[in-house]
């Protein structure tokens, strides 16, 4: 039995590890498209801020983890897949046969249609190699412009400030992290960043980027232009599914998977950022591109590949973000349903906010700013679909008592 896994990010590695546990004999191959030691993107901001070195980003230490577990790490990028012949062809022409294939090829950063994003002073912050380049340019006092204040932008923002950069953030939408936070929280985060000395330009578009004299001239939709030593582009990611073209696999933005992480092709599974599966919050298909979902999907896919039928009951969107010390989270249907009920509590002075969304006596979504204590309970309540009973009315008034509600509902014997 040969399990072939495309992609050595958290999903690929988790799948390989799970497969090895379930089957001591199978051949397991992990194709690493970046040619690096498998690492975690989640750790990049901490590498950039100097909190950890490169090794600190590695998915597993010691280095001989893969050798010890007989997982073949093959550097290379996959050019195509032949699902009929059950082979994978790499860009360098090598061909690998498989019995079972897992697509865990992840996603990649994309550029918006803006002129001048291909210069040497413009970088994404997605791969460890991107991070190395940024580290060279984002020195103390460097003028850095960050394009995009989404999840990735906001998480590396802190690293750039930690490096001593003079930072300006440019975001098209009217607030920071618009897909994760509402107007109140997103605006609070903006004010927070501004208080910490970061310029944040929302509802602003970068019109063009021009390099000259070793610096960048960045034109803004407001008519202004700013000079910079580095532009970091964090304008979104797209699933890496090009290698599946021609296989006939069902795909939308990602490769579509069912509850067992099976694609429409026999013996081909997908997990992580490249997979498009059921979204817990909407019941629709979506690519969530988040760490917890990627590893959970990978484990489920691996179990199924090993012959243990396992279902995955939809992915719950959830995020946690620390931006210059302000921690924000969002869970599930954080913007709620029209037919639902909502509770919010805002303390501007203490930089705290919580918003809960209810439907049918249950919690369906939440977002917070400035709360850290027992925050995982929000996931428990939402994904466990726990009937709140009398707690719903209490939480409508006092949403910050959510941990208490959870403990009472799960452990209290009424």
């Amino acid at each position: 039995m040969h399990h072939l896994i495309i992609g050595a990010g958290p999903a690929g590695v988790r799948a390989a590890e799970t497969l090895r546990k379930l089957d001591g004999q199978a051949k397991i191959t992990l194709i690493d498209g970046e040619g690096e030691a498998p690492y975690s993107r989640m750790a990049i901001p901490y590498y950039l801020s100097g909190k950890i070195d490169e090794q600190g980003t590695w998915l597993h230490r010691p280095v001989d983890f893969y050798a010890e577990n007989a997982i073949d790490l093959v550097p290379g990028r996959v050019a195509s897949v032949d699902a009929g012949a059950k082979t994978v062809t790499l860009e360098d022409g090598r061909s690998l046969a498989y019995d079972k294939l897992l697509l865990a090829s992840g996603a990649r950063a994309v550029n918006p249609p803006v002129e001048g994003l291909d210069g040497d002073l413009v970088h994404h912050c997605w791969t460890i190699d991107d991070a190395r380049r940024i580290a060279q340019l984002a020195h103390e006092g460097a003028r850095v412009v960050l394009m995009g204040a989404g999840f990735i932008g906001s998480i590396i923002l802190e690293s750039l400030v930690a490096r001593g950069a003079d930072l300006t953030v440019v975001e098209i939408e009217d607030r920071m992290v618009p897909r994760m936070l509402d107007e109140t929280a997103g605006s609070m985060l903006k004010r927070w960043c501004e208080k910490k000395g970061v310029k944040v330009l929302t509802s602003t578009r970068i019109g063009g980027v021009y390099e000259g004299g070793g610096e960048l001239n960045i034109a803004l939709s407001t008519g202004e232009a700013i000079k910079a030593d580095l532009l970091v582009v964090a304008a979104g990611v797209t699933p890496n599914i090009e290698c599946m073209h021609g296989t006939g696999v069902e795909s939308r933005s990602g490769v579509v998977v069912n509850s067992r992480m099976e694609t429409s092709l026999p013996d081909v599974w997908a997990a992580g950022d490249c997979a498009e599966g059921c979204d817990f919050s909407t019941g629709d298909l979506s690519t969530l591109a988040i760490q917890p979902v990627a590893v959970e999907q990978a484990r489920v896919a691996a179990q199924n590949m090993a012959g243990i039928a396992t279902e995955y009951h939809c992915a719950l969107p959830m995020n946690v973000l620390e931006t210059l010390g302000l921690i924000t989270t969002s869970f599930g249907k954080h913007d709620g349903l029209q037919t639902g009920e909502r509770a919010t509590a805002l303390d501007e002075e203490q930089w705290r906010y919580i918003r809960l969304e209810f439907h049918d006596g249950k919690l369906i979504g939440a977002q917070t700013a400035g709360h850290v204590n027992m925050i995982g309970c929000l996931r428990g309540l939402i994904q466990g679909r726990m009937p709140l009973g009398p707690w719903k009315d209490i939480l409508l008034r006092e949403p910050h008592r959510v941990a208490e509600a959870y403990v009472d509902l799960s452990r209290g014997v009424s």
Partner: protein
Amino acid sequence: MAWAKRILRVNLTEGTCKAEPLNMDWAMDYLGQRGLATKYFVEEVDPKVDPLSPENKLIMTTGPLTGTGASTAARYSVVTKGPLTNCIACSNSGGYFGAELKNAGWDMIIFEGKADKPVYLVIDDDEAELHDASEIWGTSVWHTDDWIKEKHQEPQFQIAAIGVPGENGVLFSAVVNNKHRAAGRSGVGTVMGSKNLKAVAVRGTKGITVNDPEAFEKAVNDAKAVIAGNAVTHEALPTYGTQVLTNIINELGALPTRNAQDVQFEKANDISGEAMHEPRRTDGKPNLVRNAGCFGCTIACGRISQIDPTHFSVKDKPQYHHASGGVEYENAWALGADTGVGDLEALTYCNYRCNEHALDPITTGATIAAAMELYKIGALTDEDTGGIKMEFGSAEALVAAVDAICDGTDFGKLLGLGSKRLCEKFGHPDLSMSVKGQEFPAYDPRGIQGMGLTYATSNRGACHLRSYTVASEVLGIPEKTDPLVTDGKAGLVKVFQDLTAFVDSSGLCIFTTFAWSAEDIAPQIDAACEGDWSVENLMKVGERIWNLERKFNLDAGMTAEDDTLPKRILKEAAKTGPAKGLVNGLDKMLPEYYELRGWTPQGVPTEETLSRLGLA
């Protein structure tokens, strides 16, 4: 170490909050909490100050052990000049508030002046800020607690507050924290109200260290083992709470009944600790839900009760149908035996209301009892009571009277004076069972003679918690003495007073002394704190505190004539029980006590005594 070494000074007039270092020289002489705060108080406040004027100050204070892992290290005290007594006041409470204050990094808060409008103080570790309390002024402790947590989105706040009576000058208002733990006596909550200070909310996350961690761990574990191995602290108190005393003291003929006209109550067993365990006829559930501990307490004597929802007191009031603090011995006595009411559910309701509105239940019950006697002799009329038939034994009258105090009706305002001023106003001062303006608690000094001296000499007015000789005279702790004799009681009272003074200054609960001797306590303090904290030195600290308090009271205008007991206790013999025919023999004990204290026959500490204690 152990001390946070920092105090918070809140000037309510100016609206300022400032940190200052703790005076460590004073800490070495007075340990903390009761002793140290009293030292600060007497240094800063004119003894003749009007307790309800802005010139009075109010100190909330923790002990060095408060918030550490020592068993019962929950305590904080409120020190001020009491409006009920015009003496130094120091009321001690448990729950979670004190430990939280300490964990926020504060040994004490000194409140001075008076806010021009109602405020509450919020402490979040190092940050302290006054907030507008106009939305909670005029509401209960319970509402205030909920409101502040909701307002600040902080369920982890520990909150101490006053109720409406404290705002309105009811002279026996307490400070209640965690909704059912009270710094109960002498009207400390009334002082808070007079300063327009509604509540203090605190969140602490800084951590508390001790001087010698290894020695502390050993001392604390040894002491916990003593508590766990002692039948009183390991079985009786958790199971029955202090309420186990009701039947004992009644059998002894020392349960003051119907305003101390009698010394035995025929319905004692109906309101006892045993009764709280009995399934009720109506709903088959016992009054008692469970026992509860204060912060760090390995005894857990606290009572959590739930009132019978069909009982007349709460039938139409679902807001009282939940569990909350149940009656303790003193409360059951004051609200029950002393008023002649044997209805446990009614007492529990009244206890809830005392907690909800921060009233001292001892003075509340004893004042209602005095009003019942005034009513009986016709001195108080239906017109005065607003139509309430203030008859001994009437649960309806009791409930109505407590409601009247909480609601601030005309009759409630009369009762809010306390029994001394009430009885004076209606021409029968001798019917107030009080010393220095404060009602005595649940031990009749005719049946337990030592308690007579305890009450007469207590520095905060009549009180059992200044020298609990009941431990010896009734319970045989540390050794049994005869409750009916006066011999040897002067010495007993002095030792108990000094011991209690230092325990009250440590952060520990005095109830530990049912199991612990000073030899169990001293090593814990000594390991936690720098300095010498041998038993010998601690007893001297206790004596120093006692004399400091005494000196303040004398400077405030008190004299030896105030070291007395109600006429009834001194002249009217007990009618039943072992003490039948006896009055309290205070005149035999007091001169010996003064002498043992090193005081003149006029009850004034001699120069020699003062200099020996470093008070000259």
